[in-house]
């Protein structure tokens, strides 16, 4: 009997052993893959290591945009209500007050958020880490979310150039929204790293020593601009004041380094504060200085003059018999003032901005050479300055020119350019005929501190140095004030102690209702350089539909006067008076 029981026991044991052996084989081989995968899924966590976004600095290393670590504070009002029951309102008021004090928010707005019957509210998006920690310790219902905050210490300074970046909940990182922040996002953003670790189930606690793979984040590169903060501030202030004063719809101004074509300042009549991108008017976010072409008006007359001097068609002191109007194909072009047959020197034609005299000269130059000269000045081509949304402007193709086209283009109507292109034209004249397409990004500085200069664009020889020199002298006549009808159109641009070369422009805007040129709205322009004979700076200004009789020359004066002081430009001889009108 005991023997039998023993045998049965042994049999049962053997069967059990076989069963467990079979199960073991099943688990270890057949289901091994599945089980491993689900186990890993349960405890393996991929932690993203955020890469810090690069900064944007000006030419002197002043930081215009940079990133800091921040915390978003979130909470669940519904949960607070259910936990605190009767004390909930008092507790929420207390919380709203504390959060407002710590983060500088509006207590009433926070109170409103907390009183809402919602499961998730964001109390603030940019609390400092220590502030967030203190609040979380005081109110355990508040949770932190790690964020990167973008700082714009200079506010709206160069905001239209720099643009703005803001937090993207989808990507869990800062993303450029407008301007350079958007177009250079790839350079600034860097590459996120990651860490694959095991975590305790249901929490973020990393099990020590469980790191499987790790890749450090590569911070984004810094972008150094050619802008000068101080100059940018002054140009921006003066332009915005002037736009407001003249009642213009808008305006743009660009300051270029005459020798290198670097953009030292670029301002628009309207701007925004990148610190509050959400509330900014979308119309103010663009950068009209590169994206909005306009008809330049008389500033375009230097193309004709450059051609005439370059091809030896006329000399500055050649006298032209200029009637009050000229017929080009089917239309008649008048001068801006009524006159009979007058005798102007070529300088006088430019300085007094005679349309008739210019068209007479252009006709001598010929359409082909004029068209070629326009292209050499960079009109109708993008400058590739490095900013998003750049417009090339428009120049009608040579084949499509009608008879009257050539009556329009020399006086700056029927073609369009951006303020930057306009500045580029005058930069060529300032730089002895060599046009260097403007650039706004000076260099990128990698996370290791290595500096990569932006490639310099190829210079374009527009005219000979002699022609450029003659043109500069002619342009100083524009700003001369002399008796006997020998004053130029832009003497308000004069800066005492310096010779100023420049050109005024007025172009009729197109009335969209009739598709014709409007008689009351104008683009008022001015482009010039200082000092005239060895220019350091080129300034181009455009005002969009200011009040009647407005000139941009006084604004040029203000900017040029600041430049002369700030950059310590040596005082020069006064410009000799040139003869504009011959009796």
């Amino acid at each position: 009997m005991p023997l039998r029981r023993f045998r049965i026991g042994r049999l049962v044991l053997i069967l059990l052993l076989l069963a467990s052996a079979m199960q073991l084989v099943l688990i270890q081989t057949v289901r091994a893959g599945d089980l491993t995968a689900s186990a890993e899924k349960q405890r393996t966590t991929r932690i993203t290591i955020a890469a810090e976004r690069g900064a944007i600095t000006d030419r002197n290393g002043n930081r215009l945009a940079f990133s800091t670590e921040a915390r978003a504070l979130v909470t669940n009002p519904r949960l607070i209500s259910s936990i605190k029951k009767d004390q909930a309102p008092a507790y929420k008021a207390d919380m709203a007050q504390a959060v407002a004090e710590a983060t500088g928010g509006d207590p009433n707005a926070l109170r409103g958020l907390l009183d809402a019957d919602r499961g998730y509210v964001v109390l603030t998006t940019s609390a400092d880490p220590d502030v967030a920690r203190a609040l979380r310790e005081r109110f355990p219902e508040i949770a932190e979310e790690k964020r990167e905050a973008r700082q714009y210490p200079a506010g709206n300074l160069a905001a239209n150039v720099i643009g703005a970046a803001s937090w993207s909940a989808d990507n869990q990182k800062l993303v450029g929204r407008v301007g350079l922040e958007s177009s250079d996002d790839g350079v600034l953003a860097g590459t996120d790293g990651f860490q694959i670790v095991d975590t305790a189930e249901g929490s973020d606690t990393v099990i020590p020593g469980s790191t499987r793979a790790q890749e450090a984040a590569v911070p984004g590169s810094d972008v150094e601009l050619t802008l000068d903060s101080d100059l940018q501030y002054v140009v921006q202030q003066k332009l915005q004041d002037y736009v407001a004063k003249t009642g213009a719809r808008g305006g743009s101004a660009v300051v270029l380094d005459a020798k290198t074509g670097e953009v030292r300042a670029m301002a628009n009549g309207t701007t925004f504060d990148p610190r509050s991108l959400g509330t900014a008017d979308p119309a103010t976010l663009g950068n009209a200085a590169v994206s909005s072409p306009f008809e330049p008006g008389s500033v375009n007359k230097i193309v004709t003059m450059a051609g005439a001097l370059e091809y030896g068609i006329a000399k500055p002191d050649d006298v032209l018999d200029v009637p009050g109007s000229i017929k080009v194909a089917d239309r008649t072009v008048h001068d801006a003032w009524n006159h009979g047959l007058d005798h102007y020197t070529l300088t006088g034609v430019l300085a007094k901005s005679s349309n008739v005299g210019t068209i007479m000269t252009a006709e001598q130059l010929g359409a082909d050479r004029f068209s070629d000269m326009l292209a050499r000045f960079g009109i109708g081509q993008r400058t590739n300055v490095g900013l998003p949304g750049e417009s090339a402007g428009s120049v009608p193709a040579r084949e499509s020119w009608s008879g009257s086209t050539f009556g329009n283009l020399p006086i700056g109507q029927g073609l369009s350019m951006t303020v930057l292109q306009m500045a580029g034209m005058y930069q060529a004249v300032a730089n002895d005929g060599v046009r260097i397409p403007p650039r706004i990004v000076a260099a990128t500085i990698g996370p290791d501190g290595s500096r990569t200069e932006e490639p310099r664009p190829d210079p374009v020889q527009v005219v000979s140095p002699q022609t450029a020199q003659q043109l500069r002298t002619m342009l100083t006549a524009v700003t001369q004030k002399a008796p006997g009808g020998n004053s130029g159109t832009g003497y308000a641009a004069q800066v005492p102690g310096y010779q100023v070369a420049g050109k005024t422009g007025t172009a009729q805007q197109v009335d969209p209702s009739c598709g014709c040129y409007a008689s009351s709205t104008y683009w008022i322009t001015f482009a010039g350089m200082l000092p005239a004979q060895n220019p350091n700076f080129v300034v181009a200004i455009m005002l969009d539909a200011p009040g009647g009789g407005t000139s941009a020359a006084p604004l040029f004066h203000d900017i040029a006067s600041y430049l002369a002081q700030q950059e310590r430009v040596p005082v020069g001889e006064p410009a000799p008076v040139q003869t504009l009108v011959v009796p």
Partner: protein
Amino acid sequence: MSAPVKTPTRPRPRVSVDWKGTEAPARRIPAQRGAVTIPAPRKGSQKGAQKAYARRDERVRRAAPKRAVPKKATQVGTGRAQFVLLIMGLFATGLVLTLWLSTAAAADSYALQQARTDARTLTEQSERLHREVAAMESTPALAQRAADLGMVPVQDPARLVVAPDGGVTVVGEPRAAVGHAPVPAANPMPAPDAGPSQTAVDAGAAQAGPPPAAQPDPAQAQPDPAAQAAQDAQTAQNAQNAEAASQQAQEQAVQNPQQPGGA
């Protein structure tokens, strides 16, 4: 079936026990014993031989343990004690070491925790300070603070050009900078009592300025000394922190430029 299985197994442990401790001779002894004890009943006829065998057996039995056992006991005794002591020593050392290491690790982990907290606090502090510095040194902030101090940007300054021969030419027209910002008191610290006497003299000088300015002709020449006097008054006040006098002189400083302008 169970009984035969058990019998052969019983002597084996006994054999193996002797076997382990003894050398080659000891191995023979159980074989002899076995040979003596088991076949004994069969050889009952020869008593002499039996006795001899028994005596020899007895001798061997006495001799063998005498020689082997005491020797073995002392050797093993000292060796084992040393070994046990060694192990105990090792255990004790290990225990102390483990305790010490874990205590040190715990203490270090607190220090590490503290250091990490400090580092984090300092990083946050540094970041905040950097941010504040960036905000304070940004151009608009500087411009604002300059304006708050009553500074105004100068437009078209006159310049002095010094010729190689030492002659000086004034380029441009010297003019006072025009500002729209009200000028706050340069030094708003409370004034000591001794202050006003000195400034009153200067302020008096400034006050003496305006009457001639009312006459049309000298008005053109007047502004400079008058403004100078007012300026002197202000410098003196700054030095002495006379608040009342400062206000008075400021009014004059504002009035003085107006009078020539009106004339």
